[in-house]
């Protein structure tokens, strides 16, 4: 069923491509592939890359692979067929993306990875990733403080096939497990989804009404948790998210969430395009392949300065 749906989307994308094919030979093309365009984080990431690429005089194409490595591979075929100058990619899985990136490289197209890394070196031209582990530890630290360093809590994990879901969870526990009085009473995957987090937290609240905190692997799940907690009149439960979305920023300002962790998505995407441009002009980026950007903690103190995944 999902495959069918995606084949349909692919067909539509090809029709769209055929429609705007002729004039593409003039300006050079940068293909931007992100997991989805309906999650604000990935949406801003794609928008940031697109804005920078246009500024530097490139044509752009934005695609999303929906965390499906096969679809990602098809999109990279499309990029190769379109003779793209460079690909900016937030990939669909550390292991399952290696072959697709290699394929682009073999066709002479440099790939610049953002947000997530792949499990191989020397294939991508650059891997610019957030330090998810460091970010998760920041979030966990704030979470422990918001909970007064004691009490039962719930962890909402992201899609378990996504490397970042596991890295963030490890980062959370690296900190939280050091507090003997913090106790995890439930741990569920809500697949990065707001509505799934909403129904699951409602059920968890029934099983464990004593919970004092919810720590979520991303902001959309944190928003789902907040909706469920507010609906149950549980304003006393501390919520911490991850990403730095405008929604959670507003929740922090309104006292409904304790903190989130900003991944500089906008800056990261723009930097990837800058590096790609440098590489295309000079034949090298002048940087190491792997570049790790630190995350920033967003609390009530600095929430007002956050907008579209960038801190002003």
């Amino acid at each position: 069923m999902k495959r069918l749906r995606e084949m349909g989307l692919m067909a539509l994308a090809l029709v769209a491509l055929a429609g705007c094919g002729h004039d593409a030979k003039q300006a050079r093309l940068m293909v931007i592939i992100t997991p989805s365009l309906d999650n604000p984080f990935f949406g801003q990431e794609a928008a940031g890359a697109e804005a920078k690429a246009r500024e530097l005089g490139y044509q752009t194409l934005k695609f999303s692979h929906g965390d499906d490595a096969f679809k990602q591979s098809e999109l990279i075929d499309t990029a190769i067929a379109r003779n793209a100058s460079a690909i900016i990619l937030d990939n669909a899985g550390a292991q399952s993306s290696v072959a697709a990136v290699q394929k682009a490289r073999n066709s002479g197209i440099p790939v610049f990875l953002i947000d997530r890394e792949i499990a191989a070196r020397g294939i991508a031209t650059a891997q610019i990733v957030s330090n998810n582990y460091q970010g998760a530890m920041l979030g966990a630290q704030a979470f422990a403080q918001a909970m007064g360093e004691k009490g039962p809590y719930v962890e909402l994990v992201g899609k378990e096939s996504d490397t970042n879901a596991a890295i963030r969870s490890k980062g959370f526990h690296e900190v939280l497990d050091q507090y003997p009085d913090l106790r995890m009473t439930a741990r569920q995957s809500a697949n990065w989804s707001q509505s799934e987090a909403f129904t699951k937290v409602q059920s968890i609240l029934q099983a464990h009404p004593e919970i004092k905190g919810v720590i979520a692997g991303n902001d959309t799940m944190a928003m789902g948790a907040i909706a469920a907690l507010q609906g149950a009149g549980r304003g006393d439960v501390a919520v911490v998210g991850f990403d730095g979305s405008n929604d959670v920023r507003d929740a922090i300002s309104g006292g409904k969430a304790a903190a989130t962790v900003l991944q500089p998505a906008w800056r990261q995407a723009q930097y990837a395009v800058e590096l790609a441009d440098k590489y295309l002009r000079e034949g090298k980026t002048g940087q190491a392949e792997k570049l790790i950007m630190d995350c920033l903690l967003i609390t009530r103190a600095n929430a007002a300065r956050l907008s579209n995944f960038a801190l002003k």
Partner: protein
Amino acid sequence: MTKGKTLTMNGAGQAVGSDYAMALLLKFRTVLALVLVIAIFAALAPNFLTVANALIMLKHIAIVAILAIGMSFVILTGGIDLSVGSIAGLAGMVAGALIINGLPLTALGVVVYPSVPAVVGLVLLVGVGIGLFNGLLINRFQVAPFIATLGTLYMARGAAMLMSNGETFPNLIGNPALGNEGFSRIGAGLLLGIPAPVWLLAVIAAGAAFVAGSTTFGRRVYAVGGSERAALLSGVRVDRVKYAVYAISGAMAALVGVLIASDLVAAHPASGESFELNGIAAVVLGGASLTGGRGTIVGTLIGACVIGVLGDGMVMVGISEFWQMVIKGGVIVTAVVLDRLQERLG
């Protein structure tokens, strides 16, 4: 028992709708599955058998059940509606857009902000419209329902994404100055301590059971599903029946979209993804045949309860996401295999 079952479920006989207790008995397998699931989770999950949890579960069941009731009518005619999940997503987005951006009347150069009941009405019209479009493809252009509704699945989802360029409409609380507040009460409101979606489900289920079981239209739905040709020859306007069932399904899907958006106080364009599969599973769990002509609304309701209770129960026990999928699939397959076995033996 088997004889009674054929009579009741074929819908051609006079027993239809007259005896819900009988129908319940005939749905024994699904009821048993429900009792079993409840018993297991009552033993394993703390606070499972509490009023508060029952209400939360009923609220979650309402989402599946309302969709599945609409789907039941379609499946009873031998059709299928794959577009419901996307319609729900689009409906939420339309509601979000109407509350946040209003309805621009370009001809008059003004923007109208409809009140919440008007928003719901307009959104239901969108659902009916898409349903009628499905009906048009199926009736006029002879497209197989699977393909016609697969097409609208993509179109409606794409339209939902286009409405906001993929972004969420947040904070759908309305504005007192515009007179459009109160949207969140539809999904989160309480009446006599019972959540509004549960009341909605009760009204819809009773209405649907009455329509399917005790009205001429209901008989025609069963007749079309039993044998479309026979129905046509005996003077049933088959095309009208089909328009009606897809319109009902579209309206129910749109209502579900409103409930989700209202509950979250936000509309997300990817909402409702793969809901069609939950809906179909509930209908089939309830004993309906995908070839049409057999099934009841009460059965669908119980099927939806099994899916809802199973989903919530597994979360409360803390079963991992991967096992949840395996178990859910196993329950669906087992229930249907039992159903077929019993039919063959009978």
